[in-house]
């Protein structure tokens, strides 16, 4: 073991706060060495509404994580989601400067800079700006370097959120003396964890249906093309059941977990289940069909909203498959429902075989994805730094021998 460095991720979720600690070994692989969880409080629909309560819970998670690997954390990679997150597409262009008409690194950088430099209205802050690919004289390509063209356009998906809410989340972390070294949209991270490179190349939409929000990300040509949030999650299902069947939220939650399904079955018509389950006074029978009908209405609407957001890509047939993850994706029959609405095969997300058995749960997708994102970023940084030295030396030699 030549060199090791610890990185951590924090996912401020509506249901849970989760910290994962990873170790970068030999600058290329990731070992997950610690984990801390806490039931979330003061967060609704992915937004922090009570910073004090949320801070207490986040602290609990961080302390648990530190205990589990007996190391103190310095910085975390923070996942952002919530009702306030939005995205838009932006193009930046540059003329190819070389006399030979070949695209150089500098041209690519100029086009990227142009795309990235769009100003946001007051009160909004960028969460991440993702390069989706390039157009060389209008022709799409993923790697433009060394190709011949007059003009290069860089396509970016820019994700931004409410400044105050982002600062709230960052302050929450910084109040424990930790630094936020990466900020990332949760949906993109979880998508990368539960899809395979082949799927991402082909065109896949990953929907992370959590407790408060559903984050989706569309990958094509191996790159994220579009991502966003629909603020509907498991809480909405529980709330719908509780209002529709006049049950307490607690009972609705347990009913949802025990008997929930994404679509009613004809055979459910005459079935009923006990609301509380203890068959005591106050317990009553609930029609299974009604409950599943309520859930079906909500989930169908959720998928419709995401379908609307993805608009042209659905019509084009660019989306080849669908992957679901997140706690709410455990509901029976949810894949069939999504398949019906999007018209493409749908499956539950599968994790990379390298990930420990106990971490292969849909709830962990975001945290693992955040860690991997932090890893790839710090590797990139490292490589860039090294390349800098090498290239300088190489340049010197090139100068000596060529001239």
């Amino acid at each position: 073991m030549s060199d090791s460095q610890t990185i951590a991720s924090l996912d401020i979720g509506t249901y849970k706060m989760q910290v994962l600690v990873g170790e970068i070994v030999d600058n290329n692989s990731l070992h997950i060495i610690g984990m801390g969880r806490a039931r979330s409080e003061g967060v609704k629909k992915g937004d922090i509404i009570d910073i004090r309560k949320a801070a207490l819970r986040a602290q609990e998670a961080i302390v648990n994580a530190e205990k589990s690997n007996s190391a103190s954390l310095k910085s975390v990679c923070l996942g952002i989601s919530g009702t306030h997150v939005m995205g838009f597409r932006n193009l930046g262009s540059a003329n190819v400067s070389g006399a030979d008409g070949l695209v150089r690194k500098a041209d690519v950088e100029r086009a990227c800079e142009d795309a990235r430099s769009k100003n946001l209205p007051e009160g909004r802050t960028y969460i991440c700006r993702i390069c989706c690919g390039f157009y060389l004289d209008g022709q799409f390509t993923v790697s433009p370097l060394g190709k011949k063209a007059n003009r290069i356009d860089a396509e970016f998906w820019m994700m931004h959120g409410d400044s105050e809410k982002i600062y709230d989340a960052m302050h929450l972390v910084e109040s424990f003396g930790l630094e936020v070294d990466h900020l990332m949209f949760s949906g993109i991270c979880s998508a990368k964890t539960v899809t395979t490179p082949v799927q991402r190349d082909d065109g896949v939409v990953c929907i992370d249906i959590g407790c408060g929000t559903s984050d989706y990300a569309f990958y094509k040509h191996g790159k994220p093309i579009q991502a966003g949030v629909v603020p509907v999650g498991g809480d909405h299902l529980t709330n719908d059941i509780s209002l529709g069947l006049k049950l307490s939220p607690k009972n609705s939650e347990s009913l949802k977990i025990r008997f929930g399904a994404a679509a009613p079955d004809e055979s459910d018509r005459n079935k009923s289940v006990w609301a509380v389950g203890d068959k005591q006074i106050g317990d009553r029978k609930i029609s299974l069909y009604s409950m599943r009908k309520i859930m079906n209405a909500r989930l169908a609407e959720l998928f419709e909203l995401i379908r609307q957001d993805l608009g042209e890509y659905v019509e084009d047939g660019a989306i080849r498959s669908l992957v679901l993850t997140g706690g709410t994706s455990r509901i029976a029959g949810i894949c069939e429902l999504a398949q019906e609405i999007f018209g493409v095969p749908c499956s539950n997300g599968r994790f990379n075989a390298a990930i420990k058995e106990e971490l292969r749960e849909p709830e962990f997708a975001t945290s693992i994805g955040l860690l991997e994102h932090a890893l790839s970023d710090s590797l990139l940084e490292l490589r860039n730094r090294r390349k800098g030295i090498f290239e300088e030396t190489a340049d010197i030699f090139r100068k000596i021998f060529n001239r």
Partner: protein
Amino acid sequence: MESPKTTPSIKIAAVGGAAANVLANLPPSEISNAEICAFDTDRVSISMLPFPCKLLGEDDVGGIGTGGDTELGKNAALADIQLLSDFTKGADALIIICGLGGGTASMVAPMLSKLARENGAKFSMAFCIMPLEMEGPQRMELANSAFKYLRKKCDAALRIENSTFSKTSLSEAESAFSDANKRIGSAVLSISSAITRSGLVNADIATLKRVFYDVKKRAILAIGEAEGNDATKTAIENLISSDSLKSCKRLDSAFVAFSCPHNFDMTLMQPALEAIGKRYDLQGKIKFSLRTNESQDSRIEITLLGTCEELPEESVSNNLSFKTVSESNSAKSPIEVSNEVSTAANQTNDTSAESHKKKAPRRFFSFGRVLDEPKAVQPSQGEFTFVEASARGFFSDTPANIRNGEDIDIPSFIRKKLKITP
């Protein structure tokens, strides 16, 4: 009328003709503990007041009013800015009463609020009397932009629709408006006496600040009054059914000021407060004050100041009472009217002379440092049909989640009108 140093200094500024009319209806004996001053560009409207008055911009305007010209109003205020600044200095709390939409108040009131903040006032509050809808969209727009500015600079800006009061009152213009003035005046009195601790049960400035802690919320003022047997109960009923509270299902905080005769039965207060708390889901976030009024009859007045979620503005329908107003006004000369009839009269007076060119709204409040220039008036929030909070259940305390014009926090089966049999 300098108040002693031991009590907080409270100042009441009445800006413009409409506000002067409110003051005119206040008995001077009841407000001995607050410093009052009326500001106007119109000599006539303030000359009859039993309070200290300041005429603004005499050189520019000549003491005849601005006739709705905001440029003139601005110049007048700038000419006498020292006067305004001196007034706001040393005030712990400043209450601004203004009838917005005309040339003077729309410019001077925002300036006062800004000066008060700069001079370190701890609490500022604006009672903004909005113009009637029939006075035209231009005045409404001006009033709205002034109100928005006040809302930003003051701890609380209360929007008082002229029509809200006149609709419930007698149809005869004169009594309708003097009644409205009395009510606004009594609300001002309740607040000032609560702060200066001249009442029986008082509140401090911090309490009021607490009530209006969230500037994004809409501030509301509602008044219920009754006399005779069971006056407290009837007053509460009147309060709840008043126009400003009718559209409101839930309040975030409330301050209830009781004004009652000397022989008031204290035991009646608790059920009254409980009734309000329960009705608007206040959960103990209710503050109150009590003062005795000078009148000898058994009249009880309950003033509620509170905040609630911003709702789409209700369109105000014009009915009978306004007709009488406009007719009676058109018959008289403007000056006569402004003396006799109150609020609307003064505003109508301005309207008749209103022929000024349209100005860019951005320039309205560009006095002082340019830095403080307010942003262009933003379009009001997307309106959505109001649903009972109960339909949102768990999400009732979170902002609406609008997609395709629907609040998606409301269960899908309700919006899709599916029948559910439990």
